[in-house]
């Protein structure tokens, strides 16, 4: 591979061979993580469904750890690395700043992932993805996380370096596109996040070697500085993908660059403090600290999402109207490409993220509601709407464009691909709403047996809980089917698919 470029026949963008290869490599690893996460999702789901109660207790907690790490960390972040290369090198017609370093970072991330997978699957890290100290995992688990994070930090630096290279080599005119701008905010938040990550995982690694002490409350404080801001990376990356998909599917226009970009900046400014909402019922912090940190920071980040929640659909409407769908109020929507999985994924992602994930999230951020929601199923109910129904679905949607554009393959099994977002979004919607509902009965999250067979005292949830969890299981299985189709379609297209016509070499 060299510094060759090819011209993309669909978009007219100049694509650097290294960018091509890096995007492919990261996307492939992300898909493997998604597969592991998906299989474990089904096993975990079938265990929480007490009617089936599939796994024994040790494997339930073990595979729940595997599910959380592979989905939330490995799938999402490897995909985001691909998004960063795309938003910098591809959208700006530029070369990747330091390809050799980029490949070392990739190797480092894969090595870290390998270490973590090994410790998890061999039962050396049954600590769930939060790994709250003093619950102990094998040192290799923490080391793996550190290697992964260092690799990610290098990729983020290469992203910024590529922006500089593109500017200097004048590969584009004017300002960077909005999608690149959004990705840049995600990258800045990633730096903040990885800073917290280093601040907590390095001491914890040393603690696991008995070299130092880590306070349990301080761990929760700093860990959520990492855990919460990493969710904001996902949000910023997802919103960038919304703008990207809007442009690709219906020629959505940017209504006003000033408003959209300022909203992205709000994400950067008001993130890390907002992590306080994870600690609302913790003993270590006082009321003033909790109230101040949760509200001032959180609501202004919420403001940003509310702004995007308006500008993205409005831009899509305008794009459609410019294409001539101007009759009445809703012709633009009726005549939208509902059979394009990129489009349907975008629409459902906006809706599920905003209406289910956003609203539940904001309410949990108040002391009074947090006290009845903390560590119940309402919490995973909420984040399966944000990061799964929102982020993961948007990422799935954009893959249907990445495959022809970057892998230069036609999408295989097109009829399946068309219904995939409907299955995934529909299933996830039912799943997360039912999960949230089960949580309102006080049903705990991360729990192997809510019939409490072997517990010293009897606990019997309202009979409705059985029903609600049954509904949740059905929703989850439909979503998992949608996820399975996604993997089938993408893997088949990439490895056995029909090639697109060769793009002309520039």
């Amino acid at each position, binding site marked *: 591979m060299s510094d060759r470029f090819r011209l993309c026949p669909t978009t007219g963008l100049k694509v650097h061979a290294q960018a091509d290869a890096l995007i492919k490599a990261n996307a492939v690893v992300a898909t493997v993580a998604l597969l592991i996460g998906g299989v474990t999702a089904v096993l975990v789901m079938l265990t929480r469904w007490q009617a089936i109660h599939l796994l024994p207790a040790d494997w339930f*907690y073990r595979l729940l750890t595997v599910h959380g790490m592979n989905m939330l960390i490995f799938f999402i972040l490897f995909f985001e690395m691909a998004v960063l290369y795309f938003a910098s090198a591809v*959208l*700006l017609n530029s070369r990747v700043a330091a390809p050799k370093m980029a490949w070392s970072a990739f190797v480092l991330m894969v090595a870290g992932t390998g270490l973590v997978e090994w410790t998890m699957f061999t039962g050396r890290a*049954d600590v769930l993805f939060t790994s*709250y100290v003093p*619950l102990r995992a094998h040192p290799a688990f923490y080391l793996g996380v550190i290697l992964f994070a260092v690799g990610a930090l290098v990729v983020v630096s290469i992203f910024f370096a590529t922006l500089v290279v593109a500017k200097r080599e004048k590969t584009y*005119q*004017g*300002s960077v*596109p*909005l*999608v690149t701008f959004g990705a840049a905010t995600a990258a800045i938040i990633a730096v903040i996040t990885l800073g917290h990550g280093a601040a907590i995982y390095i001491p914890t690694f040393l603690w696991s070697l008995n070299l130092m002490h880590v306070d*349990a*409350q301080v761990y*929760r404080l700093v860990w959520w500085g990492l855990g919460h801001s990493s969710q904001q990376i996902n949000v910023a990356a997802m919103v960038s993908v919304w*703008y*990207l998909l*809007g*442009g*690709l599917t219906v020629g*959505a*226009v*940017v*209504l*006003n*660059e*000033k*408003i959209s970009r300022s909203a992205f900046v709000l994400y950067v400014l008001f993130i890390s403090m907002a992590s306080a909402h994870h600690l609302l*019922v913790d*003993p*270590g*912090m*006082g*009321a003033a600290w*909790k109230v101040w940190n*949760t*509200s001032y920071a959180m*609501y*202004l980040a919420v403001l940003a999402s*509310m702004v995007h929640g308006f500008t993205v659909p409005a831009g899509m409407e*305008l794009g459609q109207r410019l294409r001539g769908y101007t009759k009445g109020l809703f012709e633009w929507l009726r005549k939208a490409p509902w059979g394009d999985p990129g489009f349907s994924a975008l629409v459902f992602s906006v809706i599920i993220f905003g209406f289910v994930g956003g609203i539940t999230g904001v309410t949990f951020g108040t*002391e*009074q509601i947090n*006290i009845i*929601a*903390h*560590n119940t199923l309402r919490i995973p109910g909420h984040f399966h709407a944000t990061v799964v129904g929102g982020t993961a679905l948007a990422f799935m949607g954009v893959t249907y464009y990445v495959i022809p554009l970057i892998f230069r393959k036609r999408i295989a099994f097109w009829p399946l691909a068309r219904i995939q977002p409907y299955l995934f979004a529909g299933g996830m919607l039912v799943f997360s709403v039912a999960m949230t509902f089960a949580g*309102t009965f*006080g049903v*705990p*999250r*991360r*729990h192997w047996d*809510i019939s*409490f067979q*072997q*517990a*010293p*005292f*009897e606990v019997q949830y309202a009979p409705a809980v059985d029903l609600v969890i049954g509904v949740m299981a059905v929703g989850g299985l439909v979503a998992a089917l949608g996820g399975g189709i996604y993997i089938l379609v993408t893997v088949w297209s990439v490895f056995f698919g029909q090639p697109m016509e060769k793009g002309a070499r520039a």
Partner: protein
Amino acid sequence: MHTGLESPTGVWWKPAHRTEKLWVAIAFGWCMVLFAMMPLWHWKGGQNPTGIRHRVTAEAFAQRTQEFIDTYQVGEEAGIPVVEPPAGSDIYLVGAMWSWRPVLRLRQGVQYTLHLSSVDVNHGFNLYPINVNFQVVPGYDYGLRVTPTAAGEFQIVCNEFCGIGHHLMVGKVIVLPAEQTAAVTGGAP
């Protein structure tokens, strides 16, 4: 007009359209309402998660709880001591892999100061069936002023993963009805 994939040229810092401005104003106004509600809820609301906070070592807390048990024990259930502390006193509940000790027998309508802590890893205090939740963190004594408002039996479910026996970790609180209470003090919910 351009999409988010294209580089805007020239000056893009332009006034926004009326509808867009209106939406930003509404959203901002709403955020400010929420912002104000947060302290208001704290001030007006009846159940705040913040209590008296102290650091405590696991040994010290275990010892305090043991003294508490020795002083007020009235029986035993499922191998766990049952205690009946006097009205208004400081009461102790310790989480340890994988049990809550002791079983508390309290009086309806009487205020107590509940001290929660763990001697090993994080645990979660979830009161069934009312659904009230607190994080129980080792090294910290979480002091909460509580007044049982209903009589009956309540269970404490651990809702923070604490190892392989997590799902076995259930404790108990018994609240005796107010009529059996000699002097009912206060009783605000």
